[in-house]
């Protein structure tokens, strides 16, 4: 259940930010896409829209919100699940509601507003997707949005972090069918997040080399993952010196994407935007480097011995 940001700008009269702090993390989100915009359908802009913020603490974003709901830490999943029950007129006890840190009155009001709006939108941030429960917290909100369509138009969208994460996701999907967490060890893509996702592979020490492009896992990943990166040959492509480039055996300095290297970036709603470089860089682009590496590899013997083919793993069931 998703849409492009333009849809939100044009139509969304009910916006919920869940576990995110757009005022500080995505400062242009309010003004450019969501609550501050006027449109043909919402001519009075901010006045025509209701904004709800759900978070574990009162951040700066709360000032911008019409309604602030403070959920107890680690209770997002429970709260969303309660909402799923309430929209279907299932009875949830007062004590159970109280455990999440909000009151029945607040939830009844929220449900009533959700059902009576014309176009509702959930944005969810790392406060939801990276806390206990992780992907299930996001799944909960996506499910709630899907179920809300029995009453009115509702969508949900993640607030993606920095860099062109969405772009990587989009391209992996069209080339392999999967967004991330993919292995090619049998010559075709297989998917299992938790097994093949980067952080899990590194933490378990399942790989014997690493090639890192457009990311700084040395700064963000758990210590066992960083330790493994230090143990194995790590190659890093980055315009800057980063935690990862410092621990890598090889750091290739590349041109900064969007500033001195062209390409396409995918916005958090998967809309592609052209990157038009303003400057020239003495360094090669990431693409150049990868193409040159590819070319060098293609001059080596093919990875499969002549005449052999890996076995497809599904073929046996």
């Amino acid at each position: 259940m998703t849409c492009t940001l333009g849809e939100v700008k044009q139509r969304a009269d009910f916006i919920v930010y869940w576990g995110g702090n757009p005022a500080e993390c995505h400062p242009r989100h309010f003004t450019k896409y969501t609550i501050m915009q006027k449109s043909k359908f919402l001519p009075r802009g901010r006045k025509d829209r209701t904004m709800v913020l759900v978070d574990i603490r009162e951040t700066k974003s709360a000032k911008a919100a019409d309604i602030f709901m403070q959920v107890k830490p680690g209770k997002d999943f429970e709260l969303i699940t309660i909402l799923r029950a309430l929209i279907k007129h299932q009875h949830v006890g007062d004590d159970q509601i109280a455990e999440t840190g909000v009151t029945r009155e607040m939830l009844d009001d929220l449900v009533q507003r959700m059902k009576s709006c014309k176009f509702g939108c959930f944005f969810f941030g790392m406060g939801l997707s990276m806390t206990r429960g992780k992907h299930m917290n996001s799944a909960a909100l996506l499910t709630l949005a899907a179920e809300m369509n029995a009453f009115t138009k509702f969508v949900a969208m993640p607030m993606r972090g920095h860099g062109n994460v969405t772009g990587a996701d989009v391209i992996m999907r069209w080339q392999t069918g999967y967004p991330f967490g993919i292995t090619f060890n049998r010559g075709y893509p297989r998917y299992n997040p938790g097994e093949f996702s980067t952080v899990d592979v590194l933490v378990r020490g399942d790989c014997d080399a690493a090639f890192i492009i457009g990311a700084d896992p040395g700064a963000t990943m758990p210590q066992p993952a960083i330790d493994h990166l230090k143990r194995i040959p790590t190659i890093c492509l980055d315009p800057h010196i980063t935690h990862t480039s410092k621990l890598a055996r090889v750091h290739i300095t590349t041109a900064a994407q969007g500033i001195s290297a062209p390409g396409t970036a995918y916005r958090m709603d998967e809309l592609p935007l052209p990157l038009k470089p303003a400057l020239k860089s003495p360094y090669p682009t990431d693409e150049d480097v990868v193409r040159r590496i590819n070319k060098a590899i293609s001059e080596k013997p093919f990875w499969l011995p002549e005449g052999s083919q890996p076995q497809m793993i599904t073929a046996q069931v």
Partner: protein
Amino acid sequence: MTINLHLKQAPSVPLEAEVLSPNVMAELSNSEIRALVVYHGKRQVPLEEFFDVDGERSYELIIHGELNKVRLIGRAMSRGTVTVHGSVGMHLGALMTGGRIEVHGDASDWIGAEMKNGFIHVHGNAGGQIGAAYRGALAGMKNGTIIVDGSAGLEVGMRMRRGTIILGGPAKDFTGLQMKGGTIILQSGAEIRTGAWMNRGTIISMKPLQMMPTFAYASDFNPTFTNVYAKQLKPHGIDLPFAGSDGTYQRFAGDLSVPGKGEILVWQPA
């Protein structure tokens, strides 16, 4: 007559060895078994590079060694036995349709995932996603029994449709997530979000649970089926209480968010 396999050297990256299955080896000679292909990362190597192989042509496999990085053992097997002395990696017995796997050691994630029938007993601890559905699939295990003496990880029995999972130790979050049927027995309880979004099926816990807010207390009772279960579990050395004189089960129904007809029974000793 058995086939004995000893791990010679620990693989440096995961070793995918779905050939470690009675179905594959039952009709093969010793040299054919040694030549079976396993995947060390992306390299295809003969089984004998990692294992010493004794015996041939048997439905009984005995594997020795620390196999943490050896994945897919007993995958899709339909009969025979696999006994492991040591620990095993992911996907043990996934998609199996029959036969028996016993592990004297720890197991990793996804054991018995989407299995259709058969029996798995892990004497040590296990990882997450036991008997679960793989990502995107609508149903997890469809029948069979999985017993883990020790603890378990996340999402045990996720989307399972039938069959039984019994955990001796505690489970982590999301036990019985989106369950569609079958039974999970928790002898040492679980962390949070047990039974979340369950549709049907039964979770029985011997220890108090932190319930999801979307489960409603229904009644205290001693259902007759616990009696039947107890008899079935006895041979596996598991005591499931059922007599009214020993205590009662608190019954919770949910998950209301679905809305589902699942039940969680929590034992209250008298």
